């Protein structure tokens, strides 16, 4: 039977399937569906220092094979999340990744520091790419220099591995990935959602109060796969790929273009036990194609 373990360099996961931030709540919500220990890791919903109400409704809009969201990182704040993580630790040994947010660089560093100090947390993912915080979708990951500065500052404050989550809305995502690498990121993950627009003709307004929203789901997979492939060829640190994954085959596509692991997002909403199916499909597909382990295909795309 194929070996599914995923080597991130600084650690090895049981398998490459990580549940994506903002699509898996704080893990607890999925306990009725399956044992979280089967997963490679889980990423907590993005967290700021203080509680945030999130954006006014509507926050979602379905598009063909896709989902626009403007949740606005509603959340209970870092204090409450620490409690939740301690509670979760009693129920599962799955590696927990905290998705760190901030209104400014100082907040990013502060929140990162808080969770770096928690034994229950395996690593941090720096969410410098959320399009729903600032109106117009601006975020640090659109700018390589800002990314470099911010990542360096955060790295100084923490002792845990740091994944930097990139935005597909940057003019040059490869440059931003390289800036993160140079600044000391242990890995990059991509993609966060693509900026999109949906309008309400009757009201002559955007569907969303923030005008723009973030597109996720199967619709974006060919676009995200292209970006992951490009970044994989230009950085040496491990890359965690995501965008529109719904099957084991999709996961292996990302590994083939060079990803060390993947995250699954939107699929969790409409199929709560999707991860169980997907991990099974990876196993079956690798056995069928006689692939012994992921390193055998990782980055092997001939281009």
């Amino acid at each position, binding site marked *: 039977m194929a070996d599914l373990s995923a080597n991130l360099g600084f650690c090895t996961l049981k398998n490459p399937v990580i549940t994506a931030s*903002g*699509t*898996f*709540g704080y893990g607890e*919500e*999925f306990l*009725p*569906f399956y044992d979280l220990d089967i997963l490679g890791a889980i990423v907590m*919903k993005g967290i700021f220092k203080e509680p945030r*109400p*999130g954006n*006014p*409704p*509507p*926050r*979602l*809009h*379905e598009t*063909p*094979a*896709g*989902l626009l*969201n403007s*949740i606005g990182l*509603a959340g209970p704040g870092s204090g409450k999340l620490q409690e939740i993580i301690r509670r979760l630790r009693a129920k599962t040994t799955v590696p927990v990744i905290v998705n760190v947010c901030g209104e400014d660089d100082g907040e990013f560093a502060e929140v990162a520091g808080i969770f770096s100090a928690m034994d229950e947390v395996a690593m941090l993912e720096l969410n410098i790419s959320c399009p729903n915080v600032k109106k117009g979708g601006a975020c640090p990951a659109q700018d390589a220099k800002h990314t470099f500065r911010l990542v360096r500052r955060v790295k100084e404050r923490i002792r845990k591995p740091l994944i930097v989550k990139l935005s597909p809305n940057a003019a040059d995502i490869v440059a931003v990935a390289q800036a993160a690498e140079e600044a000391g990121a242990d890995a990059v993950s991509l993609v966060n959602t693509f900026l999109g627009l949906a309008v309400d003709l009757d009201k002559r307004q955007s569907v969303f109060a923030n005008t723009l929203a973030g597109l996720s*789901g*199967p619709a974006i997979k060919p676009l995200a796969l292209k970006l992951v492939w490009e970044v994989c060829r230009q950085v040496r640190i491990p890359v965690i790929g995501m965008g529109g994954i*719904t099957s084991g085959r999709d996961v292996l596509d990302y590994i083939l273009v060079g990803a060390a692991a993947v995250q699954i997002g*939107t699929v*969790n*909403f*409409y*199929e*709560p*036990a999707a991860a169980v199916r997907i991990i099974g499909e990876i196993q079956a597909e690798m056995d069928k194609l006689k692939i012994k382990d992921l390193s055998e295909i990782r980055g092997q795309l001939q281009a």
Partner: protein
Amino acid sequence: MLDERGLIEEARSLDGGYYQLKIAAPRIAAAAKPGNFVMVRVSPSLDPLLRRPFGILESRPPHIWLYYQVLGRGTRLLSALGHGDSLDILGPLGNSFAEMPGKRVLLIAGGRGIVPLFHYAQAYAGRQPLFMLYGGRGRADLPLLDRIKALPLRGLFIFSEDGSIGQKGLLTDGLEKIVRTERPDITLSCGPEAMLARLARMLKPEKTENHASLEALMGCGFGVCHGCAVQTVAGSYRKVCDEGPVFPLEEIRWPT
């Protein structure tokens, strides 16, 4: 809460663009309480991507019944299914309308809002004094009327906007009088947002305890996407799917 493959045993098209499904889903049926809802995957395809929320009209294990209106793409696809087709159903979801032993309860249902209240009436009628105020655009909008008449209600008040059945008007036109004459302790309501907003204004001066079941766009139905937010009078947001769908009527900030 679980994800169960349900088997459609009967699909009926009713008046007014309504449909009724009888589905074998033993584990969900066993756990369902009045007010709960389910999330249904209407198609194995990736478009539409999300499940659709539907209340549970009736639950007699191993079956549940759904009752829905064709509104858009998802419900249209659903209406094409029939006997022998299967459906992924997640449920039972959300909180429920609690049983209120001994209390006089007025059920207020607009259009498809009948669903959780029918379930409630069926489960608890006979055990407590129930009254129902039920309205719609016209006769075709109330295809469950015959079944409702068969329930042991203390009183049933019908309104239609076009006057084709019952009294002519919005159901809220009849509310004041019914509250005076039947003196309910509690109102349970479900219907269009505009109806609930009007109820909230009208019931404010009354001494009734008021609970309403809300609708919202839902990404997941079990609390993880934060897509179903509704604003409270306090200004904070609540998730309709797992903090609701039933809320105290006065807790919600209704559009004015």
